[in-house]
């Protein structure tokens, strides 16, 4: 059975991290591609996308589902419940008044869109009951940026060397069989 390593390199200089990622991208360590990289950072920087490559985020598909549910379900709910409540002709208005239903459908559309977006976010980004990274440093929450990689025996040492080359502050690792 071959050993498996999880390695986390903590950096303080963001530019160095980008350079390190460029190196991985250029395949300086055979067997490790940029797609294997998991990055932990204290802030949200869109520049990461350029080094890590496009990684998909499907939150908006969930939003779309929520929106459609809100519009169709909301309108359906209003119209059918009104058509069951026949004791209620009021003010010379029809039993199923469209203008007021538009207002309410609009609110339901937004409500369900937002709820769906949040649920989608929690599930898709692995929060709530998703899997956690085993290696985590509190310094990520302060000002350091971390590269996490799952490695095997061949790639373990070269990656650590690469990290050191880019002025890594600290390397944490975990070995499993």
């Amino acid at each position, binding site marked *: 059975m071959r050993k498996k390593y999880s390695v986390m390199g903590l950096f303080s200089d963001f530019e160095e991290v980008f350079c390190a990622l460029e190196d991985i991208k250029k395949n300086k360590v055979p067997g490790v591609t940029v797609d294997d990289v998991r990055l932990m950072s204290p802030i949200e920087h869109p520049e990461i996308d350029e080094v890590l490559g496009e990684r998909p985020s499907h939150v908006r598909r969930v939003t779309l589902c929520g929106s459609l549910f809100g519009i169709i379900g909301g309108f359906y709910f209003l119209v059918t419940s009104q058509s069951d409540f026949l004791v209620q002709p009021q003010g010379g208005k029809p039993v199923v008044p469209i203008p007021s239903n538009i*207002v309410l459908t609009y609110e339901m559309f937004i409500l369900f869109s937002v709820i769906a*977006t949040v649920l989608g976010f929690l599930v898709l980004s692995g929060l709530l009951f998703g899997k956690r990274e085993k290696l985590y440093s509190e310094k990520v929450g302060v000002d350091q940026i971390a590269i996490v990689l799952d490695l095997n025996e061949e790639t373990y040492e070269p990656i650590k060397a690469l990290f050191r080359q880019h002025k890594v502050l600290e390397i944490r690792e975990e070995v499993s069989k």
Partner: protein
Amino acid sequence: MKHIDEKAIDEEIKWAKINEDVLRHMETPRKAYWIALATSFIMFLVGLTAEVYQYRYGLGVADLNRSHMWGLYIATFIFWVGASHAGTLLSAFLHIIHAEWRRTIYRFAEAMTSVALMTAAIFPMIHLGRVWNLYWVVPYVSDREIWSNFRSPLVWDAFAITTYLTCSLTFLYVGMIPDLAICRDNARGWRKKLYVVLSVGWQGTDRQWRNFRKTYMTMACFLLPLAISVHSVVSSDFAVSLMPGWHVTSFPPYFVAGALYSGCAGIMTLFIIMRYFFRLEDYMTVNIMEKLCKMTFAIAMVWTYLILAEFAAVWYGHNQADKEVLLAKFYGPFAPYFWAMMFLAVVLPFTLAFQRLRRNMAALMVLSILFNIGMWLERWMIVSPTLSHAYNPESWNMLWPSIVQWCIVFGSLGWFGMIFLVFCKIFPMVSMYEVKEMVFHQKKDLLGHKHGHSHAGSGHVVGKPSVEGA
């Protein structure tokens, strides 16, 4: 004239210091914080006493009558719903247009949104005759197939406010998750337990950030139209009715503008209070305040235009009943309140045109409170003159609100202050990660500005505009 540095924040600030400062505010606020909290609590008790009294004896104690069916309760309801709007404007709208200066102040503005909505929501309940049957407004499935009346603007209100409260709370929460993770890493005791649960396992991985970015932008895009629809719906309470002075076509935009105006004034007040209570002078800087003032000024002018347009429409529309209500405001029994409103909310904002005032915290504190008093009067001037002077001359009468109404209005301020201050103590009121981003971008822009194209080779780092929510 002295040159003023336009920077929103000092970009050389250490990121560790940001964490430290923000986390410290939750632990050790100034003594004034505790005084404010105690005051709020006492005010809340006053309101609670009045409400219990009213609950026991009926709404008659509020001095409402056959014409004045609504009173300060509904006026204050509109006021608080209005106050909740600026938070969304600051956080969602300014996020969409990438205004960097919002980053240090949007958190408490959003908190203000949610808490103001919670305050607003109690007013329709207080004013109900039989509050214990409130749940009938909710459309729930019952055996007798009885539903709430979807034609009623009050039901629209219920829908809109529930939606807005849910959405603004989740928006506030989602935006806070990365900060809650920082709190989790640093807290002890009960706070630790709380943050572990609330941070839902945030680790700042690229996957989380990527989804976070999309989520946050998407929610912002939904929040903005929602906020506008909410106050339009509140204005429908009046615009949909038949009464002179209420049945006004321009009410929805007028209400939205008024909401943003009073909300911005509220944010100015809280800005100064938070800055002092929690020693956040490095983050809530005078430059940001100045931008806030400019925004308030612009919105105040929009609102001023709309209120004058409304008067003009009524005047030249020449509908007798509408006109009489307007005259009742101009020189009838409501005149002192009306002209006070005109002075405080229409004339006074022009002082914001002066830079010296925009940078004077003490003056702004007074001004922002006066704006809000003006805007509160404005809501009252929407509700009461029409009620006292509707179509049927037999029912014309004046009945000023009783002490019970005033106590409950006063108490709502305490309720707001109480929840808001406790909220500030538990959750980080300056967004740590966003301030870091702000510092990061500001520094980068500065470098890019200095070095020009010399770093063009590593284009992903320098001088590159941030692309968000692509």
